[in-house]
C-alpha cells in the first residue's frame, strides 16, 4: 500500500436512499466542482478505496465506470483512473442539470399545493428581489 494520501477520501451514508455508487459519483463531482480535484489527478485504486472504507469493490468499479461515462474521469490501462482535463466544465453543466431537476421537483410541489402560474411567478419574483437587495 502506498504511503501518499489519496486524492479523495470517500464516505458512504448508509442511511441515504441514494445508491452507493451514485454517492461516490456525487462526491467526485463535488470535489471537481469545488476545485479539490483537478484534471490529471488520479483517483484512488479500487483496492485503496476498499482499504479506506468498508465498501464493496464492485460498487467502486461501477462508480468509476459511471464517471468515465459522464466524461469526468478516464481509465488509463495499467495506470489507474484519472480526472479528465474538461471535468470542471462537465461538473458545472451537470450542476445546472441538478438545479433544473430540483426546480422541476419544486414546481410539482407548488402545483400540488395549489399554486397557479401567477402565484409561482410572484413568489420567484419576490426571491429575486430579495437577493438583489442583499447583494
Amino acid at each position: 500500500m502506498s504511503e501518499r494520501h489519496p486524492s479523495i477520501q470517500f464516505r458512504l451514508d448508509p442511511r441515504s436512499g441514494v445508491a452507493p455508487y451514485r454517492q461516490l459519483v456525487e462526491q467526485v463531482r463535488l470535489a471537481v466542482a469545488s476545485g479539490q480535484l483537478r484534471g490529471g489527478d488520479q483517483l484512488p485504486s479500487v483496492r485503496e478505496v476498499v482499504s479506506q472504507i468498508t465498501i464493496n469493490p464492485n460498487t467502486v468499479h461501477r462508480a468509476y465506470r459511471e464517471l468515465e461515462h459522464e466524461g469526468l474521469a478516464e481509465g488509463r490501462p495499467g495506470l489507474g483512473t484519472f480526472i479528465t482535463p474538461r471535468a470542471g466544465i462537465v461538473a458545472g453543466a451537470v450542476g445546472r442539470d441538478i438545479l433544473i431537476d430540483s426546480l422541476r421537483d419544486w414546481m410539482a410541489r407548488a402545483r400540488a399545493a395549489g399554486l397557479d402560474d401567477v402565484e409561482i411567478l410572484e413568489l420567484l419574483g419576490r426571491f429575486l428581489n430579495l437577493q438583489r437587495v442583499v447583494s
Partner: protein
Amino acid sequence: MNSTQNVLEARGVGKRFGLTWALRDCTVSIPAGKVAALVGPNGAGKSTLLRLAAGLGRPNEGSLTVLGEVPGHENARLRSKVGYLDQERLLYPSFRVGEMLRFGKATNAKWDERMAASYVTQLGIDVDARVHSLSSGQKAQVALTLCLAKQPELLILDEPAATLDPLAREDLLQLLMQQVAQNGTSVVLSTHAIGDIVSVCEYLIILSRARVVLCDDLDYVLGSHRFLTAATSTKSSEPPGVTVIESRVSSREASYLVRMDAPFSDAGWRITEPTLEEIVLAYLREGAGRPDLNDAAQSSGGDGGSQ
C-alpha cells in the same frame, strides 16, 4: 440468465421440520460475483435457506443448485468450493490460533497459507493465543479467516457480524471486501444490519414468513422505490401504474411506498426517495400482515401477529 451464471438457484424450495414449514415456495437466483444480502425477521427461514445451500440437509420440495451442482453431504467436490460460516463459529477452544490455521491447511486442498497469515497479522491477533482466550470479535475474525483461506468460490455467511461491537464488525466486513476485491468471491450473507447492506451488498433478498418477498439488484431496489404523497382532497385513490407496497392514509394526506417499474407520470404527487431501511421495513410489515402459511396446518389460534 442461465443457471451456470448463478451461484445459487432455488426453484420452489420448501423445507419442513415436522409439521412446520421453515421455508416454502422459495424461488431465488443469485448471480455470480455478487455480494447478496438475505434479510428478514428471526424465523423467516434465512438460516434454513443458507444451511440447505451449504449442503446441510435437503429440501422437502423444489430444486436447489449451488454453483450448478446439487449440494449435499456426499458432494465433497462442491463442499470444497463453498465456505460456510454460521453463528456457532466452530473453532476448537483449546487450540492456539496458529494450530487452527495448520488444521485448516491440513484439511483443505486449496488452502492459501500466506493469505491466512497476513489476515491474522492485519487483525492484530496473536497466533500463539488460545481460541478460548479471544474476544468474540476475534473469534469471528479467525473463523472468517479460516473460511477465506479455503479460497471458496462462494461464501455463505449466517449473520457473520451479529454480536460484534462496531469496530470488530467493521474489521470483519473489511476483510470480506478485501477478499471480494482480490478473488471476486461470490457471497451470500444474512444480516439484520441494514447499514451493512448498503456498504457491502449489491443484491437484496427479503424473506418474510418463510417466503421470498423481494429479490433484486440493490441499485434497482433503491432506484425503483418511491414515496408518493398527496393531499386526500386532491387524490382519492391509490397512484396508478405502480405496485403499492405500503399505504398510510390520514384524513388529510395519503402516502404510499410504491415500486415503479416504469417512469411515473401521474401529476400532482410529491415524490420522495425512501431509505433502504424504510423499503425493507415496508416489505417486512407487508409480509407480516399476510396469513402465516403454517396457520392452515395448525389449529387456528391467535391472529398471526406474533413472531
